[in-house]
């Protein structure tokens, strides 16, 4: 698969605020790529640079190998689904969808067919003549998508398109988007701050923070092998602790030695350690590596979520079996589930925890 889109050394400043710093990104054809990060991380700016609404201060944007950095948005073979739908309020559903087609001078028959096809694709058959202002949020979103895809773009840009919908609708739309992507066979570049959305839909997730790409990879690798504390915190819940890599395959956490599978960190090297809450195994006292006491308990549906005080650290633990508050327990972790990360070297790379 070749690259459909490449960003080369992109930098962008707003006033004195450096939003993107020397960002490089390659997007393969026919992938679902998600730019994930907290607000202000530069993900939307990246998308706007691709769409042509923002011009980078430095760097180039290549589309199918062609430099399109200075091409205005109306000359790019991309379409965008906007965060607030941006439907044209004085036009009917059909007129909204036909907008791009009319500009490119398609025949009336073609436009009619295309509207019907697009509405069917987004499950909105027969809505041609409705007033867009009378539609629900979810319906408006579908129309916005229909309006973008009738133009047969090679890349569809989606800027937090389902952020404003309620939870159930959001989950439905996630499946719809995956289906759409497969039916259309085009590249999706999707921007969100919702890690669950990113993990559910994407082929590739790009985690961004403070204008830098923190990590890029498949959802599984992002989740299971976060490369730094930011990614670990941002994606899912985690226990992040300082530790010392004593030697290959042995790490000391909170004064207790844990076997692990990581090598190549050297000896007696300070590192960050990530352990996912569902990877902490609770047992009777004395049977694990550390002993502690349950201090909080919440029922979450699929599992229980507990906080365990052990070794001076408050461990977050998820388990299908329940241990009441005050109960003494022991903790154990499978060596495969201990993720060792280098400590950040510069201040810019410093993990910033932002609630989302």
């Amino acid at each position, binding site marked *: 698969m070749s690259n459909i889109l490449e960003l080369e050394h992109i930098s962008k400043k707003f*006033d004195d605020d450096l939003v993107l710093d020397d960002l490089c990104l390659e997007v393969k054809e026919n992938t679902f790529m998600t730019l994930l990060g907290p607000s202000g991380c530069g993900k939307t700016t990246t998308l706007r640079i691709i*769409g*042509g*609404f923002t011009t980078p201060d430095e760097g180039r944007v290549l589309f199918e190998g062609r430099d399109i950095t200075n091409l*205005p*948005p*109306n000359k790019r073979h*991309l*379409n*965008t689904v*906007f*965060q*607030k739908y*941006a*439907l*044209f*309020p*004085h036009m*009917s559903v059909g007129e909204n969808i036909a*907008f*791009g087609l009319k*500009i*490119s001078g398609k025949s009336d028959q073609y436009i009619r067919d295309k509207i019907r096809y697009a509405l069917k694709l987004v499950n909105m058959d027969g809505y041609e*003549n*409705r*007033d867009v202002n*009378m539609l629900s949020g979810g319906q408006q979103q579908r129309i916005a998508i229909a*309006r*973008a895809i009738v*133009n047969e773009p090679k890349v569809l840009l989606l800027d937090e398109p389902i952020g404003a919908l309620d939870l159930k609708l959001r989950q439905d739309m996630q499946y719809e988007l995956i289906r759409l992507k497969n039916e259309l066979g085009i590249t999706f570049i999707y921007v969100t701050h919702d890690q669950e959305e990113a993990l559910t839909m994407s082929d590739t997730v790009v985690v961004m923070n403070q204008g830098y790409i923190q990590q890029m990879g498949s959802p599984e690798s992002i989740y299971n092998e976060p490369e730094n504390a930011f990614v670990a915190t941002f994606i899912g819940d985690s226990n992040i602790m300082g530790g010392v890599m004593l030697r290959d395959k042995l790490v000391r956490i909170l004064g207790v030695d844990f076997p692990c599978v990581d090598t190549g960190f050297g000896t007696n090297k300070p590192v960050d350690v990530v352990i996912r809450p569902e990877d902490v195994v609770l047992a009777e006292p004395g049977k694990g590596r550390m002993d502690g006491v349950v201090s909080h308990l919440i029922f979450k549906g699929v599992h229980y979520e507990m906080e365990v005080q052990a070794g001076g650290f408050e461990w977050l633990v998820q388990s299908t079996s329940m241990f009441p508050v005050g109960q003494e327990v022991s903790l154990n972790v499978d060596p495969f589930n201990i993720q060792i990360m280098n400590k950040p070297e510069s201040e810019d790379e410093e993990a910033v925890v932002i609630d989302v």
Partner: protein
Amino acid sequence: MKNFWKRFYLVIVLLFLYLPIITLIVLSFNNTKTMGVWKGFTLKWYQEMLSSPQILNAFCNTLFIALIAAVVSTIVGTIACVGIMALSRRQRNTILQLTNIPLLNADIVTAVSLMLAFGLFGISLSLGTVIFAHITFCLPYVILNVLPKLRQSGTSTYEAALDLGASPVYAFMHVVLPDIMPGVFSGFLLAFTMSLDDFIITYFTRGAGINTISTLVYSQVKVGIRPTIFALSTVIFVIVLVVLLLSNFLPDKIAQKREEDAKKGIELTPEQRRKKKTLQRIGYGLMAAVIAVVSIFGGRYVGAMTGNGEVIYFYNYGDYIDPDLVTAFEMQTGIKVVMDTFDTNESMYPIVESGQVSYDVIVAGDYTVEKMIANKLLQPINYENIPNAANLEPSYMEILARTDPGNTYMIPYTWGTVGILYNKTMIPEGRITSWKDLWDPELAEYGILMQDSLRDTFMVAEMILGFDMNTSDPEELQQVVDLLIEQQPLVQAYENDAARDDLITEDAGIGMIYSGEYLYCLDENENLDYVIPEEGTNVWFDCFVIPANAKNVEGAEKFINFMLDAEAGLATFEYLTYPSPNSATMELIDEEIREDENVFPSQETLDKCDMYHYLGKEADQVLASYWKRFRGN
């Protein structure tokens, strides 16, 4: 009881708001020029309005200026808003502050600075400068209306349109504009009304012969506003009312209908949509047609003003010439008369002095002409080209020569005296002989009226005291002021135009008045009589003069010559009722009137009279300070 007071209060407020307008509407149907008497229902003022080229001209001017100013300022303002939105927040705030200042600025400042700027850049005042000025002051109103709408609609739909392949212009026209249309429309309406309303800015930036309704009305203050203006105001009020009702109720109705349709889940079928589109198109078409008609009309009109035919620009008091005479002159000579009007000499003078507007012939009062001569604003009259000047009564010319030696610059148009008008049913005929009678406590019960005018009011006291009416000696003026203050308790009112009406309606029994008003008053109330007091009085002349910067001197001479014709003089006399200085005209006037020494005083009386002279700046200030002393008392 509480309810009663509530209602009472409401009625009072409504009366307060609408009584003046109702008065105006009622008076527009009144069969007389005099306010305060009902002489029966008539439509003649409406008829006169529709047949008066001057009013129609002003009306069309007003509409044309307002429409062009509103259209241009709406377009420019909307584009400006787009630009403002693209600025950063700090820049935007600065720009908004700057555009809002003209809103709060006093009109007079805007007006004068525009006039000065036009002068500085050598742009002579014309219809164009008025339109330019109107566009300037309308702009902030448009921005004020459009910007919030634009901000509300945001940039997202615009970007979406670009994203779908629209060029920026296409996106603006098809996506942004329809969205902000309500704001644009209300901006347009506001600009239109502001322009329609404006007086001050128009007044200072207009060129020769350009009148709007407001400047026309204002210029008629000297002779009293003709009821045609009431008729015109009534028509405007009704139009504004209708537009207001439509613009208030129609959008509500439409929105209501839409909502109901939406509730019922009614979708427009393609046929209905097409129908709606067609209706929309017809609407746009109508609008385009109206604009086209007005523009064509306006174009023709502007063409006529700047046009090919010969034109003279004539500056006159409002309603101070028989319009039929103007038409007759135009028919006879083929020269178009563009008439511009002013209300007082004092407002006319600076406009002529500024030299930005050039007139060919002006009618002005004697002492203002004196000032114009002193400041070299006039050119000598070439009597060879005005043979009808022979008709002028030599004895009057002699008096006039006191102001204008050798009758070099001034050709009298009308003249008159100041005297006392009294009601014979209250005061026996022959009882009034002297200015002192205005100080008679016995007459105070009938109501004594004095003029509220510096030179005239001072003149009365000066005549009693035996002073020169052109005195500026502080001691004498102090005595004059003392005498007038002594009279104050006896005086019912100090008023100018209203004096005539009060005497006709017998609200007052005696008052000082211009002889020109006498014949008119006599027509309305035959009990009135006019006396020139034995001490003598002021004789005044309104004269034709030709300014030094006149462009069509030949046309001006033809016009003056035409006006000095015996028949033209008669028409003028009948229209204005002011005495004529034309001996040929005198032959044609009713003997009864001609012999009336009150209207045409004998040589003996005239010998006791004098004219006001231009006293110079310093003396003017002295007089003004004494006038203040008297009026402030």
